[in-house]
């Protein structure tokens, strides 16, 4: 009888944990993987920009150097594959496209805080 009670308790607790996990999984994932997502987002953004710049440089000034540069930057686009993977993982774990947009915006504008810090440090006087 006692064993049955303990087994039931464990089952209820496990079920509770499972539901809690389901409920809070997006928030936990957001906290755990957010920074990695932001970093990979930057890496992919950077790789895409470098690739476009290399393409334009070859167009403006065709040369062996610019061909090699373009080929390297094409390989660099692998970062976007990593970014795509983490994006899909986060969506699968319950984050919404809006959550990802918010993370993306945070990454893009991370240096916003610098303005207020700069003004404080330099003690702007008028």
């Amino acid at each position, binding site marked *: 009888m006692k064993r049955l009670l303990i087994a039931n308790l464990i089952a209820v607790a496990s079920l509770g944990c499972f539901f809690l996990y389901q409920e809070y999984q997006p928030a936990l994932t957001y906290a755990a993987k957010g920074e990695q997502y932001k970093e990979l987002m930057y890496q992919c*953004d950077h790789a895409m920009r470098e690739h476009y710049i290399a393409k334009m440089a070859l167009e403006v000034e065709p040369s062996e150097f610019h061909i090699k540069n373009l080929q390297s930057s094409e390989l660099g686009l692998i970062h976007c594959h990593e970014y795509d993977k983490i994006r899909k993982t986060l969506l699968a774990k319950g984050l919404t496209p809006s959550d990802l947009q918010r993370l993306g915006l945070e990454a*893009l504008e991370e240096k916003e805080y610098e*303005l207020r810090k700069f*003004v404080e440090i*330099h003690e702007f006087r*008028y």
Partner: protein
Amino acid sequence: MSFDIKAKYFLLSSVLFLQTILWAADGMDSILRDASIRNGFVAADQINPEVDDSLVQIGKTFFNSKNVSLNGDISCQSCHIDKFGSADGIPNGIGVGGIGEGLERVQKGGAILPRNTLPLWGRGSKNFNVLFWDGKIEKVQEYILSQFGEDFPSMDPIVIAAHLPPVEIREMLVEDKFITNQKQERLTSAESVFQKITSKVIETEPQASKALAAYYSMNVNDLTYLQISEAIAEFIRAKFAVQNTRFHSFVFEDGKLTDGEKKGAMLFYGKGKCSSCHSGPLMSDMNFHAVPFPQLGYGKNGFGIDYGRYNSTHNPNDLYKFRTPPLMDVENTFPYSHSGAVDSLKEAIIYHFDPLRFLKPDEMSALDRHEYFKRLGASSSSMLASANLTDEEVEQVMEFLMTLSFIPADI
């Protein structure tokens, strides 16, 4: 030698000495006048266009009205203030949600913009054909390069420029449901936003709208944003017209400068080679150059990066280049550079020839250091036009630059 001869000799020597000093001073004055004119400096009244006073007054209402921002709480005047040299006195502009001026505006929140607000001095003057830091509006012969493509609304660059801030999200526009739906690269979507702004202006500024309609002999309800922008442009032409400075007076009216100011001017046009880029009626060649200024804020390209002119041309040779800023009233247009990262004129001058002096690599992130390395590389072509100046010489150049200050028109 008798006393008489001694006295005559002394008198003659004194006269000759005085004459030499006067000749030298006069020689320096004429060299400076020639150099400034050779570098395109002209009298203020030669570049200021004729304006229509009635349109200027209507434009003043719209320039100062927060109703020109569709759903925000900001007017053109919020960021273009006389005491800050017609800019806003803070490093990165603050758009919608911003409160107050200067320091208060930074401390009280609001949407931070990626670049330093540009002063408006001389923006409506003749041949001022390249607008904004990256020249995103440029008049080339009978064509205007802008984000409007072939359907640019006017042949006047300042009129086109007056179209941009009210439809720039964060600057004068809050992104609500309506704006999200219009956020597409289509001219018609921009048109519907302009129509909505115009309707709001007609409703909230009835007197000025009626006067504008009368000016163009139109029905009020037929007004479009084009007429509103033309009125704003006329006000900018009048209010922010460059006035006579002490340097204008020196060059064109035989006015006087102090020795320090003249030495500074000689450095500006001579050894310092500043006039290689800072030439023309407003001390700008209207061309694009890279100067390795630090980057402050998230930048036009995000992540603390601003590619400058490249954003308009997509030509890699234009990476990190910005239009040479005009120097009129430069004393009051602080902070300096495209991201306002330099708060003193002295530092701004030094960054042109000795940028590593202020660099603290240990305090920078790896990305910031990498980006700075690229900016330094991009500026190498401008290195020909730089010379090492002593701190005393920098002070003299500053003294000269102060002679470009003026009292704005009282409109």
